[in-house]
């Protein structure tokens, strides 16, 4: 695969969904798609310099582009609000009990610092190891680990306080 077009297409096919998925957690759909497109445009320009694996790098670019959204219409929303909004976009399929659980969990999450929630997203939804997640977030591995630990602890506490019975069951 020496052909740059081939390499880029492969990169796009493998990672577009992940990059857009992340962007959707921060901004509305149309802006998220634009940010993803731009992320890959940056990747095209820097194709010869991409690290392996490239996903953390791509997510890092997307994260920086999102941070630059100054336009009020496109201002990024709180992570937890976006997660809740995306759940509302899902039509049907959810039973009430799950909704109640989810609402409680989201309420607990909204009490956490944004970056702590983000640390959880990278760890659990993306399965990124700490060094990769830290690279995306532009912090040290130590800082990332602190955030992740804090998030887990608070989430645990909040859930135990909020739902003694159901969580135990």
């Amino acid at each position: 695969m020496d052909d740059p077009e081939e390499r880029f297409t492969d990169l796009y096919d493998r990672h577009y969904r992940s990059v857009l998925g992340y962007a959707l957690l921060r901004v509305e759909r149309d802006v998220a798609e634009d940010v993803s497109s731009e992320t890959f445009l940056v990747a095209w320009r820097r194709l010869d310099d991409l690290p392996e694996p490239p996903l953390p790098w791509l997510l890092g670019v997307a994260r920086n582009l999102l941070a630059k959204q100054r336009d009020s219409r496109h201002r990024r929303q709180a992570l937890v609000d976006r997660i809740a909004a995306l759940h509302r976009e899902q039509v049907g399929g959810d039973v009430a009990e799950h909704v109640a659980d989810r609402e409680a969990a989201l309420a607990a999450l909204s009490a956490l610092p944004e970056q702590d929630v983000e640390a959880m997203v990278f760890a659990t939804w993306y399965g990124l190891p700490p060094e990769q997640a830290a690279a995306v977030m532009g912090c040290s591995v130590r800082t990332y680990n602190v955030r992740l630990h804090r998030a887990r602890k608070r989430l645990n506490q909040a859930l135990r306080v909020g739902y003694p019975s159901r969580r135990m069951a």
Partner: protein
Amino acid sequence: MTDRMFAELKPAALDELTEEAYRRRRSADLAHAFAAPRTPRRRSRRPFLLVAGTVVAGLAAAAAVVVVSGQSPAALPNPRQAPIAAPSETRTPSARPVNARSFLLAAASTAMRDPARAGRYWYVRERTFTKVRVVPSEYEAKAKALIEEMEKKEKELEGAPEGLAATKKEFEAKFLELKTTDLPYLAYSADTRESWRAMKKGEPGRSLSHPVTVTFGSPEDEAAWKAAGSPKLVESTPRVRLDDTERILSIDNPSLTLQNLSDLPTTEGALKGELEALWKRSPNTAQTDKRGYLWQTGVDLMTAPITPATRSALFKVLADQPGITSQGQVADTMGRTGAALSVSTADAISYRLIIDGETAELLQYEVWEKDKPLLKVTLEQMGWTDTPKARPEG
């Protein structure tokens, strides 16, 4: 425990949204990127950029990437730097027309991803819209009158060779006029033909011709036709016709057969050379220039079962042709949308291809004279079948 619970919080809508957007935006994103210049490899300057643009946290991030990648720090981009490289590209690429070259390069990439398929019969169903140039009954009557007149004159001029030659010329001009005088309305005959070509040499193929229908350029054209007395515009072919004559694959390239297509080169350079050689041997039935030949041959190849690698190389060869313009997204006669690429040849004739950005398949090709289409051929279906009667699935 907490992680598992958190994992369950991942919205299911996310996967649907990303999958849908991936399909919708892929071709435009690829084409848009290919149209943008790439930063040349400049490893020696990287450490400077890395240090100059970062604070302590950034350095830590870069260090983290080093751990992950195992590459030398000099080769690594810093995520914090990346957006600076492209400060102005914030608008949606799908909203602006993509240039023809980058679209074709994207198609080349897409074509590569197609699995190579094979079968016993190559099936093509195409619907051809041709501009009706003459009303057959009127043309016949006028032509007959002309011939009679000519024969009469010839008898009169017997033994006067100079006068005879001049008269012949005069009649030729009159015939040409008869054939090319535009009708006062724009009408197209549409005929659908299905063909099955056998992969095995010597095995009979099959083709089906469906009844010809007439369509008009616009309702005004239809009204003008009615005003002219609704003359019959096509010879009627009420039934489906069946024949097992071998249909030639590419009229301008008699050496190409279904059996030797897989020998065609798979790289851009080699295919370009092969097309050059084919052009030199071509009977060039349309008497067109080289550009016209290349597009017609390109169409013949796109509608034939060439390998994914040859198809990809073909798109790259076409991408390097001068004078291709993108006319944006258009619908074909079936309502499918694709990118319209146009290239003009001599004599105010231009070729236009409509290519599906998602599959890199040719949907329709057209020949235009100035701003009016003379011919539109819609590729309704193509694929392999096991029998000369079945149609491909899907």
